[in-house]
């Protein structure tokens, strides 16, 4: 009975979704000139950033990104709060299994390469596909690999917390610096340089590097917290 109602509900939802989106490719939107043309234009002419998505994420809609890293920060905090136990045995792992020497040696070999790739991805976020979120995630996968391969591998929670907080604080402070120098919050107040250079785009690469650090620290912290969750 319940399934029938759900299927009926899904049918209605599905009908409206198909109705709303299926004609899109054939007739096109009712308004032809959206905000995207402006973005594509200004990214080249004013911001000198090659990757339009980066310029939107960090500059045009930078406030969203600030909110987004806050959501991630809150999720990391919430995870710690929800799983909090009064007598917490730090250092004990819930997943304890011996991994083979091949896996251990291989992880040790791969770990620096993964971290390097992550750093590359977020430093070049304004030039090529990638950016802070992507790079940060790649770095966190490196830590995940190490945590799975070595049962005594540990990261300092205080260090993660420091990186997390400082990256967030500097993001907001860059916003205030924009307010002080240019008049609006998060304004790009540094010289933009020439396009397709590593040092170009004003504050955009700097903010994205901060985001990269923050995301890497937060995801590693999340994995670490859940992995040390002891069954009771």
């Amino acid at each position, binding site marked *: 009975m319940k399934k029938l109602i759900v299927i009926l509900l899904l049918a209605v939802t599905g009908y409206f979704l198909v109705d709303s989106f299926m004609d899109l490719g054939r007739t096109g939107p009712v308004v032809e000139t959206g905000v995207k043309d402006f973005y594509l234009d200004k990214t080249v002419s004013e911001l000198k950033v090659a990757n339009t998505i980066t310029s939107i994420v960090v*500059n045009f*809609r930078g406030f969203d990104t600030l909110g987004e890293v806050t959501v991630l920060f809150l999720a990391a905090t919430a995870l710690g709060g929800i799983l909090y136990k009064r007598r917490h045995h730090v250092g004990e792992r819930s997943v304890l299994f011996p991994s083979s020497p091949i896996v251990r040696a291989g992880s040790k070999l791969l770990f620096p390469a993964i971290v390097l790739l992550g750093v590359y991805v977020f430093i070049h976020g304004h030039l090529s596909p990638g950016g802070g979120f992507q790079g940060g995630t790649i770095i966190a996968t490196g830590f995940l690999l190490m945590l799975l391969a070595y049962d005594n591998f540990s990261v300092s929670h205080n260090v993660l917390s420091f990186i997390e907080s400082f990256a967030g604080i500097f993001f907001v402070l860059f916003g205030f610096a924009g307010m002080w120098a240019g008049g609006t919050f998060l304004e790009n107040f540094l010289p933009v340089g020439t396009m397709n250079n590593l040092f170009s785009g004003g504050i955009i690469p700097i903010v994205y590097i901060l985001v990269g650090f923050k995301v890497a620290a937060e995801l590693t912290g999340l994995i670490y917290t859940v992995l040390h969750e002891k069954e009771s």
Partner: protein
Amino acid sequence: MVGSPVLLIAIPLLAAFMIPLLGMIWKELVRIIPGLVLAFMMISSASMLMYVTNNGTIIQTLAGWEAPWGINLVFSPLTAFLATLMTFMGFIVWLYSYRFKRNVDFEPAKKYFIFLMMLVAGAVGIVITGDIFNQFVFIEITGISAYALTAFYTGRNSAEASFKYLLMGALSSSALLIAIAIIYSQLGTLNMADIASKIHLMPAGYKVTALIFFMMGIGIEAEIFPLNGWAPDAYTEAPGPIGAAFAGIVVKAGVYAMVRMVFTLFDVSGAMDILLTIGLITLIVAETAAIRQEKLKRMLAYSSIGQMGLVFVAFGIGTLEGVYAALFLMLNHAIIKPLLFLSGSQLVFNSKEKLIKEVNGLGKYMPFTAVLFALGSFAIVGLPPFAGFWSKLSVLTAAANEGMLLIIALILIVSVIEIVYYFRVVNRIYFFDKAEDLIPQKPRVNAVIAMSVLGAIILIIGFNPDVVSTVLHNASADLMDTPQYIKNVLSAGQSLTN
């Protein structure tokens, strides 16, 4: 004017990132800093409210790009009024819980205050932003803080309540994203004013679909009928002050987002009737459920849902008077319901089950708290010398001017139900004998201050409702005037309209 709208968001974010570091220096800072931040937000938005009343709307662009392209914050009479109300309630809730949480460990206390601050900041963000996707981000900030706060006590069944809330919240935020996708695919813009100026180009079918997905997305915070299953559990299992914060802050933000959508963004004919119908159903279902409750906080939660239904009925009347009445109701509800939650959670502080019958005879042992609870009860059902009377009266006049007699009758019947279940509790407090084993809780000094401030406001508005009428009139005129809103936002940059 102190500060600017963006500081209302940026300062709490900065503080949230700093609190983990400051906590390492001196543990008391994690309690003090959020209070200072909330006080700053309160003072700043109140002073900006005064500025806005005299000089007109403040539009703040972000990242140096004008309205349709960048994100902008709109501080109009309506949003200023709501932001002031929310930050004030946030400060009161902080004041109430300042010493209350002292018996809790350091780590949970730190998280409690971070989440409380972000709950207020997210709700303020929902109200002052001028961009639908940015609003989605703020809804998620509020949502995650609310889930975490609901699951705060590990001893109770709070994880269930929180999971329920999260499940509904996640589904409705998906609906919100779909609505944003429909709007963006057709109009190519995300700015509210820009959407409002172009919505007439959109085919009617898409418009209705988008509006319904929007309502599903925001209805969860606004506690409208099919989406409010989370509310009674979350209010019951969350710490007492957080119930007050939900009723006074989160719900108000949800209602604002909903009415902004219906009044400004969409020009769907019949949207008002949808609001009216949803409001009536919510009102009747919730009030009939409230009378059957045995737990005090559950009763208050259902009553809160019912009040939101009444607010939607008032908005659904669709006239300036109706909007005025709805905003007046929101103001009163935002002050009275937190008072009921705060004093109510003091009354049942030491009981395990938090049942209504456990408040028996506490009037003699906790005189001050009991008086405040009684005051709140009288005010919310709308007895004459208190604040709730004037708002209910204005709803009835607004309905009468439109000739909606059936609605008047229904509101009066529901008021009788409200009187029954609130008076039942007050009756138990004063005229029953106390259970032997229950130890009355002596409220702490800060809790007493917080509750008496709310009580004083109820009395002030009750005896002199004119103190708020100017602000409310400006706010309701602001909500009704869509062309002015579009002009305010888009005047700086040129519109993209072809």
